């Protein structure tokens, strides 16, 4: 079975590989959770690449309705056309706007469908998609047609855990929780993204990174994506690795910290910690 494996640019742990392959083999949606910045959305891109399928992305917002993924009936413009006497008004299908799910179902070849951040939507949203994701078909009331998936798409759903998902929905999914990578995995990830990074710089940067993460009071802990951004900056600035040696109390705030720390409370916290460590040195 041509399955999903770690690629040069995406390091997947074995359990993630198994979860993806199980979801593909059994044609069930895969629900991925994890800290922000651990590569949930990127996973869908990588799966699409590994399987050689095109990717359809459906980004969910707080106002998104499940129906919008299937189709929308634009009643207002039909009403307006009716009042203006437009001949288009006689065919209702002119006013049916296809959604992402419809696109994925009608496609000539199998697709990967990413439903991104499903927890952003209303609490009933997953329930409204139960049958559609289970049977991979839905009914268009306005035109009395049933849309059935020609090829069942590989569905990947990400969630940031802002809302609890209903049990009935969960029952139909495979589930994977992306754990924060340990040091070893992180080194592999860094290698995958920056093959020509200086070893010493990478090592020092990772030291600083894990130190920053170990500060428990942080509001937003930096995650993989922040680390990669930061490394990119470090490489552009071409900073010598010595700068990162955190044993020097003057540099207890990491250089270019803007990429790692995302709110001012965290930056203040670090300034305070740096100040305290300077005091201790004296």
């Amino acid at each position, binding site marked *: *079975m041509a399955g999903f494996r770690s690629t040069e640019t995406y390091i997947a742990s*074995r*359990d993630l590989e*198994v*979860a993806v*392959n*199980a*979801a593909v*083999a*059994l044609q*069930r949606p*895969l*629900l991925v*959770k994890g800290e922000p910045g651990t590569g949930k959305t990127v996973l869908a891109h990588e799966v699409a690449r590994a399987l050689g399928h095109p990717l359809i992305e459906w980004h969910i917002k707080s106002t998104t309705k499940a129906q919008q993924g299937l189709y929308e009936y634009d009643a*207002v413009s039909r*009403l*307006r056309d009716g*009042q203006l006497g437009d001949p288009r008004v006689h065919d209702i299908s002119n006013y049916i706007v296809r959604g992402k799910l419809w696109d994925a179902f009608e496609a000539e070849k199998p697709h990967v469908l990413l439903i991104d951040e499903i927890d952003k939507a*209303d*609490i009933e949203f997953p329930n409204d998609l139960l049958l559609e994701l289970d049977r991979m078909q839905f009914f268009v009331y306005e035109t009395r047609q049933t849309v059935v998936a020609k090829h069942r798409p590989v569905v990947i759903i990400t969630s940031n*855990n*802002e*809302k*609890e*998902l209903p*049990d009935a929905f*969960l*029952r*139909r*999914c*495979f*589930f*994977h*929780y992306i*754990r924060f990578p340990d040091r*070893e995995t992180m080194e592999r990830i860094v290698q995958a993204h920056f093959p020509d990074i200086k070893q010493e710089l990478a090592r020092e940067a990772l030291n600083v990174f894990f130190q920053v993460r170990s500060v*428990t*009071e942080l*509001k937003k802990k930096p995650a993989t994506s922040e680390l990669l951004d930061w490394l990119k900056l470090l490489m552009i600035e071409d900073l010598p690795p010595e700068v990162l040696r955190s044993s020097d109390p003057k540099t207890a705030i990491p250089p270019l910290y803007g990429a790692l720390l995302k709110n001012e409370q965290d930056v203040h916290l670090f300034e305070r910690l740096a100040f305290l460590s300077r005091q201790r040195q004296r």
Partner: protein
Amino acid sequence: MLAHFILALRTAGIPASITEYLTLLRGMKEGVADYSVDDFYHLSRAALVKDERHLDRFDRVFGEVFKGLEPPEGDPGAEAAIPEEWLRKMVEKLLTEEEKAQIEALGGFEKLMETLKQRLAEQKGRHQGGSKWIGTGGTSPFGAHGYNPEGVRIGQDESRHRRAVKVWDKREFRDLDGDIEIGTRNMKLALRRLRRFARQGAATELDLPDTIRATANNAGTLDLKMVPERHNTVKVLLFLDIGGSMDDHVQVCAELFSAARAEFKHLEHFYFHNCPYERLWRNNRRRRESEVSTWEVLRTYGPDYKAIFVGDAAMSPYEIIQPGGSVEHWNEETGQVWLHRLTGHFRRSAWLNPMPEAAWGRYQSALLLHRLMEQRMYPLTLGGIEEMTRELSR
């Protein structure tokens, strides 16, 4: 074999159903697991666990069912596994001479052992969550300072292989378990739970029926009717116990709820010490300037505010039922009276207690407040907050 596994999971409180079981079987038939134990572990986890809070329990059950492992520490049944001798040493290390003298008052060493044993078993799980539990009470015979259970490992091997087979033994997900008390890491999760009850506020939506009606009245000429977008109108009033035994908890609480500010447009907070009396304050550092009379709070905030008290309720009962019982000042009226006024004024109120539920029984004051709150005292755990939000949004 597998049916047994599912049953064990269900007993452990993981809601795995027939559907998931069949999925797992189908997955194995399709050869996803590839006859490797590691892959089987991964596959069954992906198929059967749907919530990261259950991952820890799953690991434990998997370990028990497939390896015949000893139940890992932290289990309710594992208390007996803590060696007596080790406990004795612990006690010696922990207690000062003075406190040892108190032991006699508490019913002797044997009884204390029981309590300590129980407490240690509980603490194992809780410490992961980041709350320091022993030593917060002030009345606790175990001393207030310097006890760190992290250094103690029971029945766990030093060197663990990195292989996945060992993952369930390592229980890497343990701090996500829902029954463990909230630490900084679990806080985000708990916060999300508050959001749910916030969403149930006012639900006004775009008014299509009204548009149709208006259009019909208009003899078919389109007349669009708009209604305002729905807003979250839940109002929350927060009373935080501060100082003394709450020192360990209050930062956690404040962080938790200050982050909630984004969600609750109307979030107000006040501090009190041990029990609310006639004065509350908004800012601890400038307590004198920021003091507010409780009457004023009652007048300012309407009964539609949901009042949440956060405190460990560990104090002398006199502080609740006796005029002048407060440890800080002379209070004309008892804490009981003030609490009655507050809970009577606000239609929905609840008390969150950062101490574990099992420990409330040991404080008369906690039981007293529990009764005064009409049983609406909840532990400050994810589960407790969920229960509380359910009660508050009813």
